[in-house]
């Protein structure tokens, strides 16, 4: 029995592990291989061509920096907007809790492209929303919102907001409210109780939400394509156009690898900081 029990988990893990190794890990290595090739499509050959990396970085450094700036701005706005909502849902919503949670995930139920196109409608020059912004002077008299960096950041913020709200909500919801009461009994003001009890206890949610928002946002190219202009291209736009239209596979692979490496660094730092189980839930008992 014990002998059998020992091999059972490997049988259970088998199919998934093979699938992920074959179609996730191995392709990453293939991409690494491709990124060191030289030549044009049809006559590509492997040659330890590290030049692809330096070329890619020097040619597209603006798009890299812009990606991280846009994704960073969107993540920051998401955080500022999400915390009050998550807090309300966790502590003050009462019987509205499920309705609010539904409102948070509802955008996921509409197609990503369709909701981004809806923002194109909302932010277009003829839209009442932009007229209102002009009226209160936030947008100049004949200024635009669409096809600017602001529109791209707004789109990123909207599309990835649920990824921030849900982890923060999950960590706030787990807080034992008696801890906050105890802080108040010990003469902490509401504000001190929040800063010294609630906020630190919700930190894992903040960290997880930040990563879950920042990672997809920095690799996104849909928002930049539909809501931005040629001057708002992100690194995703470059990779997609190198792969799909210019067929410059080595350069595209090198750029993808750099993006991946930068993001993996962030994840490893996170895992050191919060532990992998924080992302994956508890261990088996």
């Amino acid at each position, binding site marked *: 029995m014990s002998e059998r029990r020992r091999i059972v988990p490997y049988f259970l893990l088998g199919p998934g592990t093979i699938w*992920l190794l074959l179609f996730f890990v191995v392709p990453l290595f293939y991409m690494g291989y491709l990124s060191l090739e030289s030549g044009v499509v049809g006559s590509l050959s492997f040659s330890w061509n590290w030049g692809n990396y330096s070329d890619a970085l020097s040619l597209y450094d603006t798009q890299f920096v812009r990606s991280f700036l846009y994704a960073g701005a969107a993540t920051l706005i998401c955080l500022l*907007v999400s915390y009050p909502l998550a807090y309300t849902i966790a502590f003050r919503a009462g019987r509205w809790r499920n309705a609010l949670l539904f409102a948070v995930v509802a955008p996921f*139920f509409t197609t990503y492209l369709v909701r981004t196109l809806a923002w194109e409608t909302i932010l277009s020059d003829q839209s009442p929303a932009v007229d209102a912004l002009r009226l209160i002077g936030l947008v100049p008299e004949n200024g635009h919102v669409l096809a600017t960096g602001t529109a791209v950041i707004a789109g990123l913020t909207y599309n990835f907001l649920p990824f921030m709200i849900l982890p923060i909500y999950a960590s706030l919801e787990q807080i034992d409210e008696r801890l906050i009461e105890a802080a108040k009994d010990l003469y902490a003001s509401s504000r001190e109780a929040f800063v010294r009890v609630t906020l630190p206890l919700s930190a894992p949610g903040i960290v997880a939400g930040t990563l879950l928002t920042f990672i997809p946002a920095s690799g996104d190219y849909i928002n930049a394509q539909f809501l931005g202009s040629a001057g708002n291209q992100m690194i995703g736009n470059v990779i997609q156009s190198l792969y799909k239209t210019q067929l410059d596979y080595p350069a595209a692979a090198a750029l993808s690898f750099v993006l991946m490496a930068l993001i*993996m660094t962030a994840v490893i730092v996170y895992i050191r900081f919060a532990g992998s189980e924080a992302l994956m839930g508890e261990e088996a008992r």
Partner: protein
Amino acid sequence: MSGAWRWLREHAVNIVAGLVVAYMLIPIAVIFVFSFNDPAGKYNFTWVGFTLSHWSNAFGMPELNSALEASLKLALLATLVSTAIGTLMALALVRHQFHGRRAANLLIVVPMATPEIVMGASLLSFFLILGTPSLGFQTLLIAHVMFCISFVVVVVRSRLIGFDRNLEEAARDLGANPIETFRLVTLPLIMPGILGGGLLAFALSIDDFVISNFNSGTTVTFPLYIYGAAQRGIPVEVNVIAMILFGATVAAMGFTVLQQRRAEKMAAIRPEQEAPPIPIGAAEAA
């Protein structure tokens, strides 16, 4: 005045929350309203007039229909495969001690932390260098199963962690064999988790654009159709289909929540209450 100010301060958090909710729902409202629009040209960006013609013509566009059909078929298959595979992985991770747990966890987490564009591009590199299979439905299926597995594992796993294993022991004490126990006790109890994971996989698959765009070949899915149509003006029918999908997903969500409540009730049955009408059987699933 100071009263109003105090009210505002006390309710500031709730007011912000209300505004955020409105912000989340505005685009959905826009999609809904513009599904009744009667645009003058081919661009559906400004409101012209009300018409029901696009709702009655929702399935009257052959290209859109075949894209939708491809998406549904793909999502269904990807859901079935990834849910089966993912559930097995979750069972291993929660119920067994084994060497390589950290590595397995890492293998599941890393795909979720990888930008879609990197996954799409690397899979394309893989298929290109390998030269087979040719890009199309089969490569889309491979890709979709790949990015769904991790999410299924996470959802099913969270359900398994809250599982009261005494119920299985009770089944064993009452003489059920391992297979009966699994079928009659374990499976019904973790079903909501499996359904939830499957629903998430379906939603991810049917909505995927980035990875599909790299690996589709000439196959056109619903998001790929929209992307292609965006250049020449998107037909209003796309809004209609988006709203129909929205309604269907909401209904499926509701169903899963009901299932979950039922399972919770079932798990909460205690000896002092009425005996459960289910035959309870024997040993552990493994």
